[in-house]
């Protein structure tokens, strides 16, 4: 058998109060695409950060092919020198520079740069890897996918032997993912070892050769993709057998029988975000969904209802009464809650503690001159930390140091605390592990059964099919259809989006 490209042996790493990695082993061969799977907080990010020198490890050894002794990686720059490059979910290039500049910046110490030469070199690299971008194009003008590819090209051009892709596909559409996969296969054929971190099971099965599963900072095992069917993988990640998912749908169906009190109704509502006038109704105890491709106006609709964007036209009625919602605060006071799509930018307030993040919305409703005492706030926080099973060292921990799924639960807690009549959840399951996803879906159904009206938006249609009892379908900022009951199938949604079978 050939010598592995990278071997990590008995890696230990702990943070105050948390054992992030315990005795983890990882091996990567040339020309291999190796998935790193696990729930949030399983230790995937920590392992990668140890490998790239962001965190010093507490114990263990890292070997790289061609170097006899264990290497000591002190910083990301150091990792580069050993041929290890990382491309993150968030683009870490400079959007205001050109593609070529991004490819070469900061890579040599020469004072004078021959940009003409660099541009033509860049053109060669882009062509070779099949990246549809011009060297002189400004990076911000490229799509996210191309930006990601440029980041990969930069890494590849820096002679990387090990390429780490950390959730590269979460903001890409299917077509872009396909292109990215082509590029990954190209790199694979060149002998680059790729570590692929993702939450998307389908994608992982489509491209990877091997899977290493982590759980709670410990190694569960390394498997060949063909030997590990989906259900088993999920079970391994969660550490239990998974029969829950099947139940969810049935429950949603029964919820449909609820008394039909209209909680919220929009009439020809439009906002300055560009969403076209739409009518929408949400009933008590019902879970509704907005389906459509990225950018079809799903989020824009709910943002208009919440007053997050400026409403330009139309009316909103709550329980039959017309209301004037000009700001999120007014919406909140009318009993609306909104968990935004972009958790990092719009959701959490990173440096505030978990407790402060949980009470913030309720506090804003209560008013400037009526702060909660610390004890009150702590009581609220404790209640929801245990209710939602939020994994945090304490309520004083800054929310940014929590894992993605737990951050999302904090925001959920924030809105549940306001006891809204109508709760909007925009992509609550994006970028979080499957266990938490299930928890959130179950929670949504429970809330609905308790009488709350919930709108649940997700990029994963199966998720919506499981949880929603009615779907609003959108295309190009228009509402193009509404599906209910037996009509709610993946095919029907596709047809509606594509405009082949226009119902209504």
């Amino acid at each position, binding site marked *: 058998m050939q010598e592995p490209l990278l071997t990590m042996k008995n890696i230990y790493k702990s943070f105050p109060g948390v054992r992030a990695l315990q005795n983890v082993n990882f091996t990567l061969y040339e020309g291999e695409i190796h998935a790193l799977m696990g729930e949030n907080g399983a230790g995937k990010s920590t392992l990668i950060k140890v490998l790239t020198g962001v965190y010093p490890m507490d114990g263990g050894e890292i070997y790289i092919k061609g170097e006899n002794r264990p290497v000591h990686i002190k910083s990301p720059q150091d990792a580069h020198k050993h041929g290890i490059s990382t491309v993150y979910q968030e683009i870490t290039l400079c959007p205001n520079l050109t593609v070529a500049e991004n490819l070469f910046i900061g890579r040599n110490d020469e004072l004078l740069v021959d940009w003409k030469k660099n541009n033509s070199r860049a053109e060669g690299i882009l062509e070779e890897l099949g990246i549809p971008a011009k060297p002189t194009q400004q990076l911000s003008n490229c799509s996210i996918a191309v930006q990601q590819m440029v980041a990969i090209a930069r890494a590849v051009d820096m002679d990387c032997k090990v390429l780490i892709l950390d959730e590269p596909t979460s903001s890409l559409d299917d077509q872009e993912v396909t292109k990215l996969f082509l590029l990954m296969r190209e790199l694979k054929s060149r002998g680059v070892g790729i570590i692929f971190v993702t939450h998307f099971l389908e994608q992982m099965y489509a491209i990877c050769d091997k899977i290493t599963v982590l759980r709670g900072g410990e190694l569960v095992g390394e498997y060949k993709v063909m030997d590990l069917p989906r259900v088993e993988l999920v079970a391994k990640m969660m550490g239990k057998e998974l029969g829950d998912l099947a139940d969810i749908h049935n429950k949603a169906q029964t919820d449909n029988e609820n008394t039909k009190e209209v909680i919220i109704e929009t009439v020809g509502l439009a906002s300055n975000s560009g969403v076209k006038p739409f009518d929408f109704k949400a009933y008590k105890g019902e879970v509704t969904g907005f389906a459509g491709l990225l950018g079809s106006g799903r989020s824009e609709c709910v943002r208009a209802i919440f007053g997050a964007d400026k409403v330009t036209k139309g009316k909103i009625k709550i329980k039959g009464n017309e209301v004037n919602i000009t700001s999120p*605060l007014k919406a909140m006071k009318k009993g609306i809650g909104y968990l935004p799509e972009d958790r990092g930018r*719009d*959701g959490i*307030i*990173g*440096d505030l503690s978990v407790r402060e993040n949980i009470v913030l919305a309720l506090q804003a409703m209560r008013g400037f001159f009526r*702060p909660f005492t610390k004890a009150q706030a702590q009581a609220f926080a404790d209640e929801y930390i245990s209710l939602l099973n939020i994994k945090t060292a304490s309520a004083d921990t800054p929310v940014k140091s929590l894992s993605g799924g737990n951050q999302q639960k904090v925001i959920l807690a*924030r809105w549940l605390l306001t006891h809204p009549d109508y709760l909007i959840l925009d992509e609550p399951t994006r970028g979080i592990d499957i266990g938490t996803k299930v928890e959130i879906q179950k929670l949504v159904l429970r809330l609905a059964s308790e009488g709350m009206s919930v709108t649940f938006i997700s990029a994963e249609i199966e998720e919506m099919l499981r949880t929603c009892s009615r779907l609003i379908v959108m295309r190009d900022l228009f509402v193009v259809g509404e599906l209910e009951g037996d009509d709610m199938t993946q095919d029907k949604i596709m047809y509606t989006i594509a405009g082949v079978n226009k119902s209504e």
Partner: protein
Amino acid sequence: MTKNNIKPSTQRGVSVFKTISKHRLFIPIAFLMFLLLLNIFIKPGFLRISLGRDSSGNPVLIGNLVNILNNATELVILAIGMTLVTASSKGQDISVGSTIAIVGGVIMRVLCGNETQPTELKAPIILAFLLGCLAGMVCGAFNGILVAKFKIQPMVATLILFTAGRSIGSMAMGGLKPKAVSSFGYYGNFIPGFPIPTPILITILVVAITYIALKKTNLGLYTRAVGINDRSSRLNGLNPAKIKFMAYVIMGFCVGIAGFVQSSRVQTVNPYTIVPGIEMDVILAVALGGNSLGGGTVNMAGSIIGAYTLQTLTSMLTTLNVNTNAVPVFKAVIIILLVAIQTPAVKNFFSNKAKVSKIISNQGKESA
């Protein structure tokens, strides 16, 4: 039995020390203490406070500590406002010195009218104080609108008043340089018969009000939330523009009080030279207090301690008669030290050292 009791209590002692040293006020307080101790070491009588009499025979407290507490007043009050401005708008108000000139100008004009050496006050002092605060708040509101509504960088927005403020102050005084009667001086010096300098009392009052405001309102939480993530704050029902605006108006109010105290100290105002360079000292006080100048932290106690630290430093350099050319260098060196020990890099270095020494000592224990 007794043996068993001792062990946990020493452990608790260690952990108490650990929590103290981890506390966000630890470094600011430790540094202030260090400066004071250094002063005592160099001049043993540094902390001595004596009861003397002024030239009119009134009792007054005399001592370096009294002077520090007294002279830091403006810095402390401004640091309170600057903390809020920094936290909410992720930038600093560099116009505070110039707006003090405006406030001082307004106060002098109200008190002295158009005379240079009036024999009586032309208006009640309370009116001058209120108009001074109003002037400060108007300036604050102007800065606040530029920052909150027009989203201009704080440093750039406040550059306008920084540049123009002192001239406006001069205009407010009608180009005159009046000196008010000495009864106006009670607020910057002593109230006859009461030995504690009035500015110290004013500081206590302002700090108390600040404490209550932070306890009884959501000022701290809101400013921090907005400073950390204003998009997200808006979606949580806060109004970031309003909160930033409010921070600047509060800053203006602080400038009003500080300007009042400052102009009362010598009962005259020279708009061009009043509180020279104070804006940088205020910003420094906020930074020394462990607040991030990038916004999002409200460490009010830290800022106040930072202000006293700077005043102690100034006072120390005076009493030690440091060569005048070396004063800025001296100040710079100490500030670099102070800022450096608060950086994560240095903190980590020391905590690692502590870990190593702990491990070594533990090993020592085990072998023993």
